[in-house]
C-alpha cells in the first residue's frame, strides 16, 4: 500500500457489495414479483437487470432490490413495484431487462415515473 488513494480505490470498488448489508428504512425499494407466474414470465432477468443497474450507478446504499411473491395480477407479470419514501407506490407491468434500465434511470435517479410501463397505462 503506497498511498491513501490506493486504499480509497479498493474501498470504492467494494462499496457495492458491502452496502447491501446496511439496513436503511429510508431507502428506495424495487420489489420484483418472483412467484411461479413471475418467474415463468421472465422475472429473473428483470431482477438481475435491476440489481446490475443499481450497482453500476453506485446506488446500492440508497436503493434496495428485493423480491416478493405473487401480487395477484399474473397476466401482467413480470410485475415490479417501486417504493419511494413519502410517495405513492408505483406498479410497473410486463417488465423486461431493457425496461428495467430505463426505470432506474428515469424513476429512481430522475424522479420521474415511466408512465407508459405502469399498470395504469397497460390496463385494458
Amino acid at each position, binding site marked *: *500500500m*503506497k*498511498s*491513501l488513494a490506493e*486504499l480509497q480505490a*479498493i*474501498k470504492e*470498488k*467494494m*462499496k*457495492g*457489495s*458491502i452496502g*447491501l*448489508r446496511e*439496513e436503511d*428504512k429510508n431507502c428506495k425499494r424495487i*420489489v*420484483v*414479483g*418472483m*412467484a*411461479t407466474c413471475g*418467474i415463468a414470465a421472465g422475472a429473473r432477468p428483470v*431482477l*438481475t437487470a*435491476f*440489481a*446490475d443497474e*443499481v*450497482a*453500476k450507478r453506485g446506488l446500492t446504499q440508497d436503493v*434496495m*432490490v*428485493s*423480491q*416478493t*411473491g405473487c401480487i395477484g395480477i399474473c397476466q401482467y407479470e413480470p410485475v415490479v413495484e417501486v417504493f419511494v419514501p413519502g410517495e405513492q407506490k408505483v406498479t410497473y407491468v410486463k417488465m423486461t431487462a431493457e425496461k428495467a434500465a430505463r426505470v432506474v434511470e428515469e424513476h429512481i435517479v430522475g424522479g420521474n415515473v415511466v408512465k407508459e410501463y405502469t399498470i395504469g397505462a397497460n390496463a385494458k
Partner: protein
Amino acid sequence: MFRSQVLICGGTGCTSSGSDEISKVFEQEVAKADLQDEVKIVRTGCFGLCALGPIVIIYPEGSFYSRVQVSDVAEIVEEHLLKGRPVQRLLYDETVTDTGVISLNDTNFYKQQKRVALRNCGVINPENIEEYIAMDGYQALGKALTEMTPEQVIEEIKRSGLRGRGGAGFPTGRKWELAAMYHADQKYVACNADEGDPGAFMDRSVLEGDPHALLEAMAIAAYATGADHGFIYVRAEYPIAVKRLQIAIDQAREYGLLGENIFGTDFCFDLEIRLGAGAFVCGEETALMRSVEGKRGEPRPRPPFPAQKGIFDKPTLLNNVETYANVAQIILNGADWFASMGTERSKGTKVFALGGKINNTGLVEVPMGTTLRTIVEEIGGGIPGGKKFKAAQTGGPSGGCIPAQHFDVAIDYDNLIEIGSMMGSGGLIVMDEDTCMVDIAKFFLEFTVDESCGKCTPCRVGTKRLLEMLTKITKGQATMEDLDKIEELCYYIKDNALCGLGQTAPNPVLSTLRYFRDEYVAHIVDKKCPAGVCKALLTYTIDPEKCKGCTLCARNCPADAITGSVKQPHVIDPQKCLKCGACIEKCKFGAISIQ
C-alpha cells in the same frame, strides 16, 4: 453484481453447532437453483446471539434466521431466495411482531447495544481484507502515518479516555506514552489474546470476526511508540481465530499494509503469532512475555514494567485484543466521539459475554455506565423459567459477585471496584435463586488452584488450603472458626502473592462472604444449603400423605435406596441415597422433597 447476500456466522459458537455444513449445503442449493451469480454466500464472524445459533442473515431484507438446521436450507433457498418469501417459522421470534417483521436492530437484544469493538463482527467476511477496507479499514493507519505525529496519536488515545479492556483498566494512552518514552535499538508491541477467564469470549470474537482491526491497531501502536515488530500471543485452543489471524496477516502483507514503507512513509512494521498452550497464568503480562520468548510461562515481580524491560528485555507495549479493537475507531472518529460515550472515568463501550442463567447467552457491547438490570433483563432477555436474579459474577475467577441490591449500579471500572467486584475481561455470569454462593466461590477457586503456576507459596499453597476449607463448608463439616481462618487467609494471599492471578484469587470468596455471609453460616451452623445445591447437606424425603405407592421412584433409583410395597407410602434410606434427584423427576405426585 449479487442481488442478495447470505451471511452465515462462522464464529466458534455457530461453527460448533454445524454452520460449516450449513454453509456447504447453501452453496449446493443455491447452485441447484441456478442462483450462484445472483446470491453471494459470506462466512462472517460472530453476531453475538450465540444462544440462537447457527445464525443466518439474508440481505437486502436483513432477515434473521436462528437455529438453522441443514434440513432447513433447501426451504430457505427455494422460498426466500427464489420466490422472495422469508421463511417465517425460522425467523428469530423477536423480529416477528403483529405488525410484520422488524429489523434486527430494533429487537431488545440489539437496540441498546453500541457496537464499536464488535462493529464488523457478523458484518464482513473476516478472510477478505477488501471487505474490511470497504468498512473504512486501514484508513486510521493511513491517517496516523500521513497526517499525525506519534505524539499526536498518543495524545488522541489519551484524550479519548480509553482504558485497558483486559481487566485492570490502566489508561491506554498513558501506557503508550510510557512505552514511547524508553529508547532502545529494538522495541515491540504485543497483543494479549490469551483469553482465559471462564465464560469470556469477546477477544475470540474480535479475532475471528474482525482480525484486521487488531492488525491495524497494532500498527498504529507501533508507530506511536516507535516499535517495528509485533507479537500476538493467542491461545492454541482458538483454532478458528488463529487461522483467520494468519490469513489476515498474509493478506495485509500482500497489500503492503504490513512490511516496509507502509503508505509510502518510512514506517515499517511486521508481526507474528505466538501460540499459547492454554495456561491461565500466561494471560498475566510478565508470564505472557516469558512465554513469547519460548520460556516457561511464569510471572516475575514488577518493576521493571514491560514498557522498560519487556519481551527479550526490550521496551514492549502490551494491550488486550478488545483495547486494540477500539483504537482505529478513535483515530478515525476522534477522541471526543469516543469520550462522549460512557461515564466520567470510564469512556467508550464494553463487551460482555453473557452466560449462566440467562435467556440470550452471547456477546453484547454496551456503553460504559449501562446498568446490570438493563443488560440482564432487557438485552439478556431475563432469567429462564421466571426465576429470580440473585447475583452476577463479573471478572471471572479474579472478580466478584454483584448481588441483587446493586442491580441498578451503573457498570464501570470504578463502581465495580467499589462494590467489591471488578470489570475483568467482561465475563458476566448470571446466577438465579438456585445457585449456591459457597459452591460458586468453590468453583472459581478450583479453577485458580488448577491454574496456579506454583512459583510463589501464597498462591500455590494458600489457594489449595482455601479450597479445602470451602469444601469442608459445603460438606457441613466446618466450624465458625474456619470462616475466620478463611477470611484471614484470603487477605494474606491478596497481600503476598507474586502476580495478579494470586492477588485476585480470593476475590470470589471475599465478595460472596461480603454479600452472602448468611449462606456460609447456614452451611456451617444449620448444616443446610439454602439453594439446595451442596449434595452432602441435602436429604430427600417422601411425604407419606402424597405418596400413592406407584413404585416408580423405587424402580428408577440407581442406588436401590427406596423401599416400599405397592400402594403403600415409600421410604428413602438416607444412608444409601446418592442425592441424584432421579426420583423427584419421576414422581408424578410431587411427593418427594429436598430439605
